[in-house]
């Protein structure tokens, strides 16, 4: 295996990083650290680097494996089982929503499409007004956004958007709908288009190539293929974390157990796994809020067929967006939606497109001419969009219930109409909303009538999500949230939550930068508290 691309992970391992692949443990393991962090994604990565640089002994537990650029071969069939929760087929309880979420070192940041937005000021204003989060203002967070944007080289994408994104821009602009360019966390991006399968050139500034290597460089320990089973609670303290080792495929426990002791524990497993771990641990939840109000930005898709080649697989996957329909109504009015374009690759496209047989085969033969637009619904700001709830299945695995109300379906219908109109405005020959009963409409009038007649319900409408948020909402009032505004778990003295589950609503934008910045602030405070000294700041390596 020789590659032109230097692999920082392989180099670090050769240099003696403390990394244990628990799939290969031949005995049980007990370890101790100052702080144990569960999860190595956006929240865990930033926390690990901050604490390690501040002189604390950090231990990171990750359920996924440590993969790196040498493994990232841009093939969906390999990438999804290796890098995603449930092989990229994680679903809600009724199987109505498919959730794309990472399960590898770096978490979802290793496989996301690099879109990096600051938390919208209207979202923060809502938190301020309705959730008492007075410290969460654009001004208070600005230094943390600045720091993380610098750390992860986040900047608006400078090269021209690929055709898949440019069609979104042209269609919107024809209709007088403003668009803007997406900031991305990349450094020396080759503009290939395979971000979702792990960046093969290490250009994406994911946790895998930034904060995690830096933490390991500063003495942190990383355990992979270790599933956090249960926090042991005595009084108001966590005394240890019990983990099980998973086999190399990450499917079955090997029988080896891992016991981790620490002064402090940080949970960064994401909005489905973090509440589930707390539930398995019987963490205090006097007001029944744990795992409630889980948000997904439920996302619907419209496909357009164009005369010219679109080549939706090629080039930076997301570079153009429109927030127009997040601002046409008040934030707590009819549900708003953000418009973006997804990358198109054969597995994801063929499974996303509805239908089978000759119709599906014909569509797939037009693959290079297909453009897709997606709409992310901003959930959590209205009584009829209260999000879902996490529960435990018989085997202890999390399962998310996420019903969709008529209020939300109204937003889906408006979004489908918007997307079709924009695709026709950009010159589409035909448009197909991704819905089992939709036709391939050949003009806007036909599409409008067709979409208005569609029965919008789960399973008939393809609904997906790549953003899990909520379930451990912050509030300094215990009746409104299980964590404080500092991310500390109410009722437990040495437990923090540092991931998207802290959010009391959805973000209304791709959430990675919101997690980076808010967690950076929380981790900074935690480091200072644990060391009694000012915490280290993160700078670009």
């Amino acid at each position, binding site marked *: 295996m020789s590659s*032109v691309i230097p692999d920082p992970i392989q180099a670090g391992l050769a240099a003696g990083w403390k990394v244990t692949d628990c799939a290969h443990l031949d005995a049980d393991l007990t370890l101790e650290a100052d702080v144990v962090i569960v999860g190595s994604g956006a929240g865990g990565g930033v926390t690990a680097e901050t604490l390690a640089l501040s002189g604390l002994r950090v231990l990171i537990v990750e359920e996924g494996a440590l993969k790196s650029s040498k493994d990232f071969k841009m093939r969906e069939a390999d990438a999804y089982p290796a890098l995603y929760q449930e092989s990229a087929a994680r679903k809600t309880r009724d199987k109505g929503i498919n959730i794309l979420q990472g399960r590898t070192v770096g978490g979802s940041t290793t496989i996301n499409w690099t879109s990096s937005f600051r938390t919208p000021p209207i979202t923060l204003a809502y938190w301020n007004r309705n959730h008492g989060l007075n410290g969460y203002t654009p001004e208070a967070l600005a230094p943390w956004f600045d720091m993380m944007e610098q750390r992860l080289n986040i900047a608006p994408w400078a090269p021209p958007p690929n055709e898949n994104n440019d069609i979104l821009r042209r269609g919107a602009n024809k209709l007088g709908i403003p668009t803007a360019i997406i900031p991305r966390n990349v450094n020396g991006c080759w503009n290939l288009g395979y971000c979702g399968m792990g960046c093969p050139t290490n250009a994406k500034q994911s946790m895998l190539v930034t904060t995690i290597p830096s933490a390991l460089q500063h003495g942190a320990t990383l355990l992979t293929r270790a599933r956090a089973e249960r926090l042991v609670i005595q009084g108001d303290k966590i005394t240890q974390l019990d983990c099980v080792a998973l086999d190399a495929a990450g499917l079955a426990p090997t029988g080896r157990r891992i016991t981790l002791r620490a002064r402090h524990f940080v949970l960064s497993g994401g909005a489905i796994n973090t509440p589930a771990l707390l539930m398995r641990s019987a963490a205090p939840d006097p007001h029944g809020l744990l795992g409630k109000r889980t948000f997904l930005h439920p996302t619907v898709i419209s496909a357009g067929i164009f005369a010219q080649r679109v080549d939706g697989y090629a080039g930076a996957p997301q570079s153009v967006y429109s927030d127009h329909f997040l601002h046409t109504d008040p934030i707590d009015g009819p549900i708003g939606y953000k418009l973006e374009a997804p990358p198109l690759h054969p597995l994801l496209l063929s*499974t996303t497109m509805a239908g089978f047989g000759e119709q599906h085969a014909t569509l*797939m033969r037009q693959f290079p001419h297909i453009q897709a637009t997606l709409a992310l619904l901003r959930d959590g700001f209205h009584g009829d969009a209260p999000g879902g709830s996490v529960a435990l*299945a018989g085997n202890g*695995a999390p399962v998310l219930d996420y019903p969709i109300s008529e209020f939300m379906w109204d937003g889906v219908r408006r979004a489908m109409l918007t997307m079709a109109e924009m695709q026709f405005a950009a010159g589409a020959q035909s448009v197909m909303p991704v819905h089992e009963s939709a036709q391939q409409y050949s003009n806007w009038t036909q599409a409008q009538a067709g979409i208005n007649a569609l029965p919008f319900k789960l399973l*008939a409408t393809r609904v997906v999500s790549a953003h899990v948020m909520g379930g451990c909402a912050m509030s300094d009032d215990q009746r409104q949230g299980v964590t404080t505004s500092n991310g500390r778990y109410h009722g437990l003295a040495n437990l923090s939550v540092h991931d998207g589950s802290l959010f009391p609503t959805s973000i209304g934008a791709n959430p990675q930068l919101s997690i980076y910045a808010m967690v950076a602030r929380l981790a900074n405070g935690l480091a200072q508290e644990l060391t009694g000294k000012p915490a280290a700041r993160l700078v670009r390596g």
Partner: protein
Amino acid sequence: MKTNRRSFLKIGVAGALTLAVGGAIYRQLNPPAPPHPFMLDGDASKVLAAVIPAMLASALPSEPMARAAAVTAATVRVRDAILGLPLATQKEVQDLFGLLALGPARRLLAGVSGGWDQAQPQQVAAFLQSWRTHRIATLQVAYLAMHDLILGAWYADPSTWAAIGYPGPLKELLA
């Protein structure tokens, strides 16, 4: 397996439906045990051999020998895709094929009268279409599972890319 089948036939169609998604009935009949990985057994092979051509249509080659070989290859890829799923999901898929392979379920739920090996493509397509839009959510879920597994496994394979105009990833980086 034989005993289980007889037992759940007694429960009837409603019970079998629950079983199709690995529900409570199945757990009552089977002592809890860690689920084993999916096996491409006779049941699954038989059902897939009928469903794959209906799902893929002209994506498959038309020449009979090449077509048969492609169906076999697709079956193996479906198995490989299933093996990447959580064990509990693998069990659900195994149960789905097990259910579909049963005569009564095939006739009553899928509307396919003879054996799967004698089913006409139109018959199989009609079955898929009826589950696709069925009022029972479980059957819609089962249709979607077959849709995603068969189409996803097919188009994930490099051998199918030329036909859809997909050049595949940059070869220089695959070394």
